[in-house]
């Protein structure tokens, strides 16, 4: 190896370390200001949460989110469970997978003094303790493990009874039992409480009119009448799901169930509580914790994609415009002028409305919208970069580079771009929130890309309130807005700190 090559390499390394040192200096200065520190800490926090979200969330979360069936186990529009620590009574949410607590062949018997049964019978039983003065929302049972094979060549017919035994001893039939083929029950997958039947059972028990009972069957089921009001009845409720198999020989049916060739093996019984999870639920029953978590990587992706592409286009156009001058400069500056006059938001809304009809992936839809935002908004940076390039261009070392025959591209990217990079970076940081806020704003207008971003969650909340829902759904409105705010503030703070560090440096040049 010749000493000359080594010398050149050494010098290049030195130049590189020089540039690195400058970046470190800027970072140090930013860290010393309160705003810069706050911004950086917040951004690190956002990135960590995003990584956690990407690792911990189910990979098909987007598809899952858009499938209402996936969320029917959850109560709808309830606050987080931790409201109980602030004194709000909470009816617990209970979901348990149950094996039959009792099964066998009965000739003629009464189960729970309520249902006369005969034949092969299964009972799934759940104890539900209500300690706080609040009402659960609903009861459903989902079939977890079952097979619908014929027994002795015949399809079994099943009658399902759902019965609630209250702490005061009252036994209430809450569905309307009708014999159905086993395969239909398994295909439906869900056994629901029937509000009409519940109301009918309770009207008789409470000696009130049917219409009164129909107004609030679930509350009556878990309550008692105090004057005209319904108050929660505390204690342990026993919820039974009784399956009576008919149409086949009871003993062969018993055999088939024991061998697992036919019949229902296990059931998930759910009493929907009056609070759920860490962040509550929305109208569909979405676990908002998951949606809010998804919002972190989504917001950062939108912000970075928008800001980085806009900064790249803006910088390159500005450098070209300033460096070449002449008609190229004129063309770029006039284009910027036209773009600056476009009414941005209406055009974005229009594009959003058009794109939401297209049959493409939600991410593609989102990035087309942000892409249009980028296409319209790179102009501001271009004007500033151009003016900087104009002054850098006349420096002697650029002349020198030209004289030794450096190509235009080399001069632009090796000698000019590194000098304006700090400013471009400050500008980039500033425009991250713009992209995030635009996405959220378009979502609130009801433009659907299909991703559970913070904006989309907020927009669902707004639509819910608009269509007559209660305005008191704070857990649905506040967290997404606050998260949008925190994310934006982090970048605005960092941008402000960077700007105060970078600007005087530029002036010194």
């Amino acid at each position, binding site marked *: 190896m010749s000493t000359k090559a080594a010398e050149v390499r050494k010098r290049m390394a030195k130049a590189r370390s020089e540039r690195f040192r400058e970046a470190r200096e800027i970072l140090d200065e930013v860290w010393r200001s309160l705003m810069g520190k706050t911004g950086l800490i917040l951004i690190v926090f956002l990135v960590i949460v995003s990584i956690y979200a990407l690792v911990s969330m189910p990979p098909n979360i987007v598809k899952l989110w858009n499938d209402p069936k996936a969320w029917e186990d959850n109560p709808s529009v309830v606050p987080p469970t931790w409201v109980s620590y602030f004194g709000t009574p909470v009816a617990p949410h209970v979901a348990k997978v149950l094996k039959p607590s009792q099964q066998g062949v009965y000739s003629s018997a009464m189960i729970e003094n309520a249902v006369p049964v005969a034949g092969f019978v299964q009972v799934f039983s759940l104890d539900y303790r209500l300690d706080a003065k609040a009402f659960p929302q609903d009861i459903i049972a989902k079939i977890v493990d079952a097979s619908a094979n014929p027994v002795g060549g015949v399809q079994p017919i099943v009658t399902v009874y759902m019965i609630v035994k209250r702490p005061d001893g009252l036994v209430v039939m809450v569905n309307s039992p009708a014999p159905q083929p086993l395969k239909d029950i398994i295909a439906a997958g869900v056994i629901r409480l029937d509000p009409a039947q519940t109301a009918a059972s309770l009207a008789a028990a409470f000696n009130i009119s049917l219409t009164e009972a129909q107004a609030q069957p679930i509350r009556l089921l878990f309550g008692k009448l105090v004057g005209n009001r319904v108050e929660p009845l505390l204690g342990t409720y026993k919820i039974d799901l009784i399956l009576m198999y008919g149409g086949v020989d009871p003993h062969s049916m018993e055999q088939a169930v024991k061998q697992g060739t036919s019949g229902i093996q296990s059931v998930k019984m759910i009493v929907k509580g009056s609070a759920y999870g860490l962040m509550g639920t929305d109208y569909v029953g979405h676990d908002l914790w998951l949606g809010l978590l998804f919002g972190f990587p989504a917001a950062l992706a939108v912000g970075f994609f928008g800001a980085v592409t806009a900064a790249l286009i803006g910088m390159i156009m500005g450098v070209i415009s300033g460096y070449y001058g002449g008609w190229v400069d004129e063309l770029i500056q006039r284009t910027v002028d036209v773009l600056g006059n476009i009414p941005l938001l*209406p*055009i974005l809304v*229009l594009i959003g409305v058009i794109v939401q009809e297209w049959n493409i992936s939600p991410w593609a839809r989102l990035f087309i919208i942000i892409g249009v935002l980028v296409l319209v908004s790179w102009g501001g940076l271009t004007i500033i970069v151009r003016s900087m390039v104009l002054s850098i261009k006349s420096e002697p070392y650029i002349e020198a580079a030209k004289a030794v025959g450096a190509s235009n591209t080399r001069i632009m990217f090796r000698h000019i771009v590194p000098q304006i990079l700090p400013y471009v970076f400050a500008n980039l940081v500033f425009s991250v*929130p713009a992209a995030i806020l635009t996405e959220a704003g378009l979502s609130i*207008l009801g433009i659907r890309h299909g991703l559970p971003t913070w904006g989309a969650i907020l927009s669902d909340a707004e639509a819910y309130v608009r269509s007559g829902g209660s305005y008191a759904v704070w857990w649905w409105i506040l967290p997404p807005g606050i998260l949008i705010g*925190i994310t934006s503030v982090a970048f605005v703070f960092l941008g402000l700190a960077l700007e105060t560090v970078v600007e005087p440096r530029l002036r010194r040049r």
Partner: protein
Amino acid sequence: MAGRTASVLARRAVFLTIALILIMILTAAIIGASGYDEKVIRAIIGTELQAYRQSLQRQNIPATEIQKLVEQRKQELIEIYGLNKPWTARVLPMAFRALKLDLGYVKSRAVADVVGKQLPLSVKDAILTVLPRTIVMLTVAELICAAIALRLAPLIAYKRGSLLDKSVIAYAAFTNALPIWWLGLIAIFLFGYELRIAPTDYRIVIKYINEFTSNPGDAMIGLLKVSWLPVTVVVIGLLGGWLYGIRAIAIRVVNEDYVYVAKAKGLPEEIVVKRYILRVILGPVLTIVILALAGSIGGFIITESVFDWPGMGSLYYAAITSGDAPTLIGLIYITTLVYILARFTLEVLYILVDPRVRY
């Protein structure tokens, strides 16, 4: 010298006109080439044919005959709506007619609902009816911001680095980060539904504005009642940006020698601010004020939608979602025109207010 100024202004005018035409072509292209307008028209034709078929069935016309009549009607409708022509022959002429201020007629009921009138309704009438509502909310809010910022920002600029200065920057950062429409949502919840001291239905502004000529006293009180919350929210949301922007401009001059001299002479602060600071920075300040006012005319789509305020933003939104091409093109034309006129006015004003500006 004057001749040169005039020719520069003329060139500017020509260019801004070209920009306006380009933006209209671009808009027409987005509406037409994406198939958006075609899809909407097909839906309209579909519902019309459905109604037509039902009316025929009620007259007991044989099925084969109905099929023929419906097909015939379909061809007629395709002709009427111009679906047999490409978008360049359907949407583009609409944009060019708009340039001559021939804006055509509102197509959709949703748009007429925002205006508060029945169809048929000309786009020009729709925009003129809705415009005062946006002015009452947004232009007023921008004016309030401008008044406060012009008063306070120079004083803040004096005290660069002080606690006041820092808190103003922090305030600007926060309001820059929190969307105004979100503040609006929270404000409606808090003051409208919880405390019940603000309205929850803002459409009533239509009534007060309509009554303004016949009964100005009551209408004024009504307007105050309906608009105090949205105006306050918008002012809170925008003021930070205003203060920060004007402070940044003022900082460049507050440390100039002549300002120190003026202060040393013992002139009251008010006069120093007015004569020695504001007058010098009048150019950039005018830019901010005039462009903000011109921009407010176009309405804030999202904020108006959150308040359900029937202004320009809501009109935009209704036009876009219902696929009302004439209204949309009319709106984009008018808002762009106002903005471009404002920019041209600025070019003239620069020359008038600043004797240093000569081309």
